């Protein structure tokens, strides 16, 4: 399949175009189109995982222009993991959205498909400017998804989010303009090659430019000084949308990892550029996320702050990129994305059964299906706080082992263990509020609210829980694939040779 690398971009685009043509169609028709798009996307992602599994780096030249002149899509193990995770996450999000969220506006499914297109494109592209374009596609779709459902809170959160990301895009473009001015290339593989040729007197300016680029990715990944938007935005969105947004912060981490491994590690002067900063920013993000969890007033707020903690943990590995640390981080990324996504869906399921109390951590009526939700809560809670035997524990242990060789192993371990402890505390408190307090002696019993069963939402939650149990019981396939992906990402030369051929043989223009 020569066209396999572009399928995860084309399939959602096709579905989105069909959905836009059929704007006035019945919601059942839209669900059929969107659902078939997602099924095909999952199949394409599975084919990509298989194709990249043997270490092949597939390069797809758009318009058949050779790199570094034209735009290429590059499929390697890391891209395959990220695309597969996005597609897998989209299945429960789609199923959960059919429980009523998608009828609150005409364009939900079109936005969902455009978001998937942008995400997959960002994970597959091998060109920095094309990365910017796919970022904008996924952001524009996310703007639409965020305000989906209406209301003042969403409109206000939407304005803040859009302004922040437009400023981020401006920074991104400044970085790209300067990079192109200095290096004469925006191809990711060629980026490292050209960094090696920068004259010593230009290295300072190029370092600042790279720092600008990294700042943009840190903004997307919601890292400490520029990450406070995340809990505000994620709790304002409808909850199935928030579950999908979990993967958006991972785009920032992914782009950062790519730029570091393919570019900054290529030369001695740029290799140590980020290391002194990233570890502290990561630790700070974990601390802020833990404090935010303690202060959260709703269950979705806890989940949003868990996204911060998970982003900070992943950043620790990017700060000290070795095959062990990146391999561990990729396994951690897969399980934490599934867990935090599932927590948002659980918040939706709990909120629907509590009437006006929604998912607030305060007194409310008794839940209707507390056995099912309680069991799901137990599994997700154990996985989220990193307690044995589930995937969260395996991920944390792998991260802690990988960080043994880092600059501050003791600090990192304390951060990882304490954040897990705080998560356990907060989730236990939430569980007692939701499941034990209603009807207990001495607690005011609020009347039950009329409740419409949402089988789609429960099905989505069961699906997510099964996925989490699967990566916990058989972690080896995911972990070994992640480790192989990490080794491949760090083998810069092989990547460059597959994309541009022998870099010395590339014909260059003469620049003044």
């Amino acid at each position, binding site marked *: 399949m020569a066209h396999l690398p572009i399928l995860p971009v084309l399939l959602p685009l096709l579905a989105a175009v069909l959905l836009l043509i059929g704007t006035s169609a019945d919601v059942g028709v839209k669900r059929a189109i969107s659902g078939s798009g997602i099924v095909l996307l999952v199949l394409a992602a599975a084919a990509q995982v298989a194709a990249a599994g043997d270490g092949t780096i597939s390069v797809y030249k758009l318009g058949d222009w050779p790199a570094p002149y034209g735009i290429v899509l590059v499929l390697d193990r890391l891209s395959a993991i990220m695309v597969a995770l996005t597609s897998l996450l989209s299945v429960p999000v789609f199923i959960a959205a059919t429980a009523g969220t998608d009828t609150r506006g005409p364009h939900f499914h079109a936005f969902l498909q455009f978001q998937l297109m942008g995400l997959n494109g960002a994970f597959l592209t091998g060109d920095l*400017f094309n990365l910017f*374009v796919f970022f*904008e596609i996924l952001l*524009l779709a996310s*703007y639409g998804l965020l*305000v989906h459902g209406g*209301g*003042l*809170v969403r*409109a*206000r959160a*939407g*304005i*803040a989010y*859009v*302004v922040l990301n*437009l*400023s981020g*895009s*401006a920074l991104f*473009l*400044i970085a*790209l*303009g*300067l990079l*192109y*001015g200095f290096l004469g290339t925006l191809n990711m593989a060629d980026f490292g090659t050209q960094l090696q040729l920068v004259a010593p007197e230009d290295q300072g300016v190029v370092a600042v430019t790279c720092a600008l680029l990294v700042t943009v990715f840190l903004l997307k990944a919601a890292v400490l000084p520029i990450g406070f938007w995340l809990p505000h935005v994620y709790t304002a969105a409808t909850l199935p949308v928030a579950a999908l947004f979990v993967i958006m912060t991972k785009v920032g981490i992914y782009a950062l990892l790519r730029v570091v491994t393919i570019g900054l590690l290529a030369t001695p002067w740029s290799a140590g550029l980020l290391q002194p900063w990233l570890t502290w920013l990561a630790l700070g993000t974990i601390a802020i996320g833990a404090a935010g969890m303690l202060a959260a007033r709703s269950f979705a707020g806890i989940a949003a702050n868990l996204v911060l903690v998970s982003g900070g943990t992943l950043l620790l590995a990017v700060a000290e990129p070795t095959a062990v640390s990146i391999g561990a981080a990729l396994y951690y990324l897969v399980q934490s994305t599934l867990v935090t996504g599932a927590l948002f869906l659980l918040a939706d399921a709990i909120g629907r059964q509590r009437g006006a109390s929604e998912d607030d951590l305060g007194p409310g009526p008794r839940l209707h299906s507390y056995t099912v939700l309680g069991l799901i809560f137990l599994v997700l809670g154990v996985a989220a706080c990193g307690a044995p035997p589930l995937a969260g524990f395996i991920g944390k242990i792998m991260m802690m082992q990988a960080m043994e060789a880092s600059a501050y192993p003791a600090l990192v371990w304390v951060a990882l263990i304490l954040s897990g402890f705080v998560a356990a505390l907060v989730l236990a408190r939430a569980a007692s509020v939701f499941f034990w307090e209603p009807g207990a002696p001495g607690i005011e019993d609020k009347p039950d609210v009329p409740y419409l069963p949402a089988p789609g939402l429960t099905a989505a939650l069961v699906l997510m829980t099964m996925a989490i149990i699967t990566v916990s019981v058989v972690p080896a396939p995911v972990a070994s694939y992640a480790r192989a992906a990490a080794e491949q990402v760090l083998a810069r030369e092989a990547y460059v040779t597959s994309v541009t051929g022998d870099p010395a043989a590339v014909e260059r*223009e003469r*620049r*003044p």
Partner: protein
Amino acid sequence: MELLVSVALGVLTASGVYLILRPTTFSVVLGLTLLSYAVNVLIFFSGRLKATAPPLTVEGLSRQADPLPQALVLTAIVIGFGMTAYLLALALKGKAESGTDHVDAGEPR
């Protein structure tokens, strides 16, 4: 010429940043517009400042313009334009629902 362009870019960026930090949504939109002008001009000039140089290779030609930044800036303009239009629509929606243009309208104080 280089000095003129740099000063113009600096003034545009500084005004844009100042306006983005104002408390009303309308000034923020104006600020983002100014900032995106500055960014677009910067990308355009990342191919170097040259007058009357053709963008294609011609036999025996020593000076030529870089055509790629023009393609990049066109993409950036289109995207920036679309985003600003969306932001304006969102700001109008926010104003209609809260009755004020203040960025913190509806927030608990």
